């Protein structure tokens, strides 16, 4: 287990450093630039989807639970231009309360 943990730690750091160290011209190609622009959008959207609808207690299946209510609150709060903390804390409060009901 330690081997896996430490290997992954070193590898993840090197991946970060590689990104900062690669020559700038890697980005100057329009396609690379476009992809680099879209990557965070795609990953964040996927992280939202996976965090909210995947798994839960029953393994890797799709589920609809209190997290979706939390996300619903987040959408409304963001539409109302609420600050980040209100969005995040509010979403967890909504989810926690709905689980009490």
């Amino acid at each position: 287990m330690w081997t896996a943990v430490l290997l992954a730690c070193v590898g993840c750091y090197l991946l970060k450093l590689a990104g900062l160290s690669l020559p700038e011209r890697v980005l100057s190609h329009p396609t690379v630039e476009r992809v680099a622009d879209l990557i965070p959008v795609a990953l964040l959207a996927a992280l939202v989807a996976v965090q909210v609808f995947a798994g839960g207690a029953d393994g890797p299946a799709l589920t609809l639970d209190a997290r979706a209510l939390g996300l619903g609150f987040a959408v409304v709060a963001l539409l109302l231009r609420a600050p980040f903390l209100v969005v995040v804390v509010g979403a967890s409060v909504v989810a926690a309360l709905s689980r009490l009901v």
Partner: protein
Amino acid sequence: MNARALTAGERSGIVRDGLAVGLATGAYGIGFGAVSVASGLSVAQTCALSLLMFTGASQFALAGVVAAGGAPLSGAATALLLGTRNTLYGLRMAPVLQWRGWRRVAAAHVLIDESTAMSVNRDTTEGARLGFLTTGLSVFVLWNVATAIGAVAGEAVGDPRTYGLDAAVGAAFLALLWPRLKDRRNVVVGLLAALVALAVVPVTAPGVPVLAAGGVAVLAGVLARKPGPTEARPHPLGTDDAAGGER
């Protein structure tokens, strides 16, 4: 990238935003600590992940694979695959931060989703560096403290779902994504990415769906003919400001 100096108001605004992100993300570290220990990692291994790996999604992926009965090394492989997105963040951030030498070596450790998101859209070098550092460091400190608390408290903390913390993560990612959704192509890519990720959730190891969604971005970027909304301007990184960001 503009070399203009920041006003005091801009500085405190950036610092406040960074600390807020650190607080929100850090708090979830309790969840990671508890989940990781419950997955079968020791307290020391759990804390080592937060200290040395320090990229939340990869850490959760490793713990998740181990919890699901996967081999530790396949957990490590999943963590590395997820970690590749930090390389892409680095490619975006290098010209923004313009750090060299030991500063770059040190900055690489706190190059994560949050520090990138809170820095990439600033319109001055100083603002980008300040956003990157305050967010990166506050997340680092709070994430590690919270991890240790969560790991030690273990089951005493209970199920993070009791406090709705699992919902907080999705909300945090959505809040980070939100400013980018002013561009219609980003909305389409985001929706496609979410659908692809959800479609493969039932059939892949934890962590893979998000990577598959990254493929959507690559495909869309390669296939798109017309230049993106950010490419026509002198600096390609100011997406949100141009679209009427909050600042």
